[in-house]
């Protein structure tokens, strides 16, 4: 027997998660074999290829926004989690303090340095190797330092009096040289094959040059050697390549019965600007019996213009006059991603990287499966 194929309306109905004043309905996905009697829902690559869609909304180097349509929440969430915690990036991991006479303690300074996002030649960073520490393996012998696993940076800075300054000057930044230590003061020296990758524009440096690291007064000095390694966000948040990586479901607003006149204006005010529009009721609509517009020709009616920007605040559900006239919801398989890179990689590259990581994990586990089969 050929499997039953549900109608488009039925499929559309299943795609909407209901958002009510106090509750949510129709929450779990049901597109699995065995859920709907007679329907197939088994994995079919061709069908997925047809149904899956990507829409791009914004693509700046450090912020990208796009929609993935036709995906299950489990997979979308895997991408999001990988973006935050499993894409390797470079960060300062070990700090050797040769001299630190500033008021900020060694360990606090080291912690601050670790959090500074670094950038450099992407090719070079990809070439670098990373090693995952075995769990509970702190304090074991460090791996041998080589050009492909460690980037060495220096922070050598001393605060001195500025002799040519007016007597009544009070700003410490003018009064002294190097009163403020910024991330731009980190210096980088390539070693070995790093000289091929990290040259010119590709040199390792802080993404933002003006991150304040410490404040000093004349006579104080910081001399440090900083070793940067590649790691993942699951180990420490400083390795996370994104500032934020999140998704939301596309909001869905259905006006069930006409909202006209003053009510329409009030209704539009329940939503962010541009979500609900006002349009005049046409004479054709007004003449149709049972449309709810009879005798209202020329008056303003509320129409859904752009549900994308809605916040689903549910404000409209609080008002008596809109009871039963509107249905709020979200589209189950429309994920609006927002990826904000912290600067090491571009946002779109990061997402592609997350897909690659998921595939790599599958491939790796599958290889482990062969041992089981044998």
């Amino acid at each position: 027997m050929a499997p039953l194929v549900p109608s488009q309306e039925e499929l559309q109905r299943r795609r909407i998660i209901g958002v009510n004043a106090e509750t949510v309905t129709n929450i779990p996905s049901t597109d699995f074999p065995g859920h709907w009697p007679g329907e197939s829902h088994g994995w079919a690559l061709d069908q997925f290829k047809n149904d899956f869609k990507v829409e791009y909304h914004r693509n700046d180097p450090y912020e990208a926004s796009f929609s993935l349509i036709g995906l299950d929440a489990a997979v979308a969430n895997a991408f999001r989690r990988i973006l935050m915690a499993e894409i390797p990036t470079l960060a300062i991991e070990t700090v050797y303090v040769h001299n630190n006479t500033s008021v900020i303690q060694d360990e606090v300074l080291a912690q601050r340095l670790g959090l500074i996002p670094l950038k450099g030649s992407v090719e070079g960073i990809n070439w670098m190797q990373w090693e995952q520490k075995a769990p509970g393996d702190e304090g074991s012998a460090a791996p041998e330092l080589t050009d492909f696993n460690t980037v060495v940076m220096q922070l050598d800075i001393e605060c001195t009096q500025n002799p040519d300054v007016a007597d009544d000057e009070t700003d410490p930044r003018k009064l002294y040289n190097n009163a403020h230590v910024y991330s731009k003061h980190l210096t980088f020296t390539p070693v070995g094959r790093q000289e091929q990758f990290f040259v010119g524009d590709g040199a390792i440096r802080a993404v933002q040059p003006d991150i304040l690291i410490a404040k000093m007064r004349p006579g104080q000095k910081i001399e440090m050697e900083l070793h940067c390694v590649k790691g993942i966000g699951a180990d420490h948040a400083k390795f996370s390549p994104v500032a934020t990586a999140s998704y939301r479901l596309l909001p869905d607003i259905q006006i069930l019965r006409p909202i006209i006149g003053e009510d329409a204006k009030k209704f539009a005010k329940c939503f962010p600007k541009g979500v609900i529009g006002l349009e005049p009721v046409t004479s054709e609509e007004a003449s149709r019996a049972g449309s709810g517009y009879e005798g209202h020709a020329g008056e303003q009616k509320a129409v859904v213009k752009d549900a994308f920007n809605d916040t689903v605040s549910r404000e409209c559900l609080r008002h008596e006059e809109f009871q039963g006239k509107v249905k709020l919801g979200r589209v189950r398989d429309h994920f609006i991603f927002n990826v904000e890179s912290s600067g090491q990689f571009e946002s779109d590259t990061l997402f592609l990287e997350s897909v690659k990581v998921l595939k790599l994990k599958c491939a790796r586990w599958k290889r482990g499966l062969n041992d089981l089969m044998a």
Partner: protein
Amino acid sequence: MPGSVHSQDAQDQSMMDVEQPQDELMLDERRILVLPGSSETAASFQFEGEGHTMGNALRFAIMKNPAVDFCGYTIPHPSDAKMHLRIQTSDSTTALEALEKGFNDLMDLCDVVTEKFTVARDQFNEENSNKMQS
């Protein structure tokens, strides 16, 4: 060997050497274990060092298989980096095969996502650069 006599070939070779062990290094201590009490069609697998990321995505992929009666995952203890995946299948297949098919389907899905994403992005970039010019 003096650094200056490195030929181009030798360099490529050494770079490939670098990529190879990286993969294996991570695989080392991570293994799939079949938990006791398993049969051909019903088994629980333990994934070391895995969490909700892989667990839920894999659960989805395996549940999409019509021959699978049940699939679920759990992380028995939050401070143990272990994920358990339970698969029960009909007689037409085995739990192990269902798991393998899950991996394959998930990898196919990743390929489609990469492909469609790249196309959409390139198209968006093109449209935007045209807008900038006009």
